[in-house]
């Protein structure tokens, strides 16, 4: 009975009647649900950013450093390129390049997150604390949760890269893991594409 709905292929594949590996399908469904998660946070920010919270209060928009955030956005965008190059290298069986591009992606992600820490530190030094007003809270929640997603992505990339280093290369079965981490990484990138425009550029 179970075989009708769920068959196993040689090599560790988990194919269902849809013809799509169940782990891959699961990742796409998860990413689809993440739209609702980030949508709620973006919605929350847009709702509060224009509200008046009394005289003398500070708003995130007053402290934005657009050139700095633009460079951060560019770095994250380029990390999507290195990620797809890692996937492409693995598909060609080039283990050295796969490892290099995985490390490069983790490095670019770390640069992005470091930039975000710097931005938060600057904002807090200027008096924009988490609880100063709902607009500031919404800003920190949105960009903070995005940053947390990037950190998780970096950890997954490093696990794959170090595994590749230790074992001398990733197996074909592990290739799907690279693809799934890649999907997650690109998703984090597209969420930032939306945040960059809705939060930073449209003021």
């Amino acid at each position, binding site marked *: 009975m179970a075989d009708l709905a769920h068959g196993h292929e040689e090599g560790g594949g988990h194919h269902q009647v849809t013809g*799509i590996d169940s782990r891959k399908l699961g990742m796409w469904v998860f*990413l*689809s649900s993440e*739209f609702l998660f980030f*949508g709620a946070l973006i919605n929350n920010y847009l709702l509060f950013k224009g509200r008046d919270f009394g005289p003398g209060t500070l708003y995130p928009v007053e402290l934005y450093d657009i050139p700095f955030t633009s460079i951060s956005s*560019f770095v994250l965008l380029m990390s999507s390129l290195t990620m797809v190059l890692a996937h*492409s290298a693995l598909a060609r069986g080039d283990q050295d390049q796969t490892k290099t591009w995985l490390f490069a992606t983790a490095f670019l992600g770390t640069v992005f997150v470091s930039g975000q820490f710097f931005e938060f530190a600057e904002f807090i030094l200027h008096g924009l604390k988490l609880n100063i007003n709902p607009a500031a809270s919404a800003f920190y929640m949105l960009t903070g949760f995005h940053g947390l997603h990037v950190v998780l992505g970096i950890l997954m990339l490093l696990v794959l890269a170090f595994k590749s280093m230790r074992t001398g290369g990733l197996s074909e079965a592990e290739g799907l893991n690279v693809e799934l981490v890649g999907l997650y990484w*690109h998703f984090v990138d*597209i969420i930032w594409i939306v945040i960059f425009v809705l939060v930073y550029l*449209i003021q």
Partner: protein
Amino acid sequence: MAGGAHHPQPRQYVMIAIVLAVLTAAEVALFYLEAGVDAIGQSLTVPALLILSALKFYLVVAMFMHLRFEKRLLSRFFTSGAILAGALYLITLAALGAVVLF
């Protein structure tokens, strides 16, 4: 590889990344140009920024995430999630007076 479809080659990925970088530069340029234009120009900036970001979104999803080469089922799952979230939050923002739909 998804469905046996031909994925782009590394050179094409680099070209896509260059396009993405140019689109980002255009977004930032629009942001700075907005201050120097009249009211009509400013009213066009927001739609232009949204179009540019939608283009970047599409390029990453279609080419880097390979959704263009995947089975339709995955596209349906992904786009339905995006449309559902977009519609839900747009309605919420409109109901709370944060945006004007009509």
